[in-house]
């Protein structure tokens, strides 16, 4: 990754994204503010998502984000999915909430390599993102 890209990514942490949704960084956490709710994307969660779902990830059987995705655009999509998506309880005793949102445009690829337009975000009971992936 180039120094310029790294610099841009770190700068993006401090940017206000929209009038309603904002991201701030503190001690390794970036907080995604969605009105009354505040969803936190930890560095651990980001690394988890990048390891499995980034365009260059070699993980099989997992949806991949489209080439060109950045930490900032991921955060934007998580914001949008949590704010506007359909929420349901996590399944079979897993803690947390699942949000799903259809962006009506391709955001990545499915496990079969086809176009994925939807995002699933799993959020813990502490309002921390656990994982997020296109499908």
């Amino acid at each position, binding site marked *: 990754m180039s120094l310029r890209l790294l610099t841009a990514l770190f700068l993006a942490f401090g940017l206000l994204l929209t009038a309603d949704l904002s991201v701030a960084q503190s001690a390794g956490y970036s907080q995604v503010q969605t009105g009354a709710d505040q969803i936190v994307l930890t560095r651990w969660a980001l690394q988890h998502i990048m390891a499995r779902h980034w365009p260059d990830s070699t993980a099989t059987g*997992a949806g991949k984000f489209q080439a060109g995705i950045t930490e900032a655009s991921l955060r934007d999509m998580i914001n949008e999915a949590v704010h506007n998506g359909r929420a349901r309880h996590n*399944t*079979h005793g897993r*803690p*947390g909430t699942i949000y799903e949102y259809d962006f009506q445009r391709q955001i990545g690829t*499915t*496990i079969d390599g086809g176009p994925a337009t939807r995002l699933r975000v*799993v959020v*813990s009971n502490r309002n921390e993102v*656990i994982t997020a992936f296109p499908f």
Partner: protein
Amino acid sequence: MHLDYRLNEDRETDWSSVTEEDLRYRVALGNLVFHVGDKDFSADWGWIPLVDLAASFAEIVRKLEGGSASETFEFTESDSWVRFERKGEKVLVSTSYGDGVGEIALHAASEAVKSFRERLRSELLRQHPQAAHNAAVRKLLGAV
């Protein structure tokens, strides 16, 4: 029904402090070996949280035994699923990623899931003895 697993090597996890969320999403990862009759529903993706799968399958069997007509297991990192549909004393098994429908007796499915959970617990405790004292491990895999 043949239900088994391949556990990835893990020398980094502190098993005395893992949380339920860790076990549901981040540790004890591996592959699922899953045959129902002549149908192969195995998943060799390498990232499947096996403790979560064992606990979820156990809950699914409990619900089917309790009268539920259908239960669906969702994988943690994709929209892939395994569906269990009860038909009398039989269970029909289908997946989003494999062809066909497998059929098994409910009591056999229950035994297979119980055995899976016990074997996984034994292997994890053999590899990581400190896990025996972890409340989340005991909750999801049963008391030792």
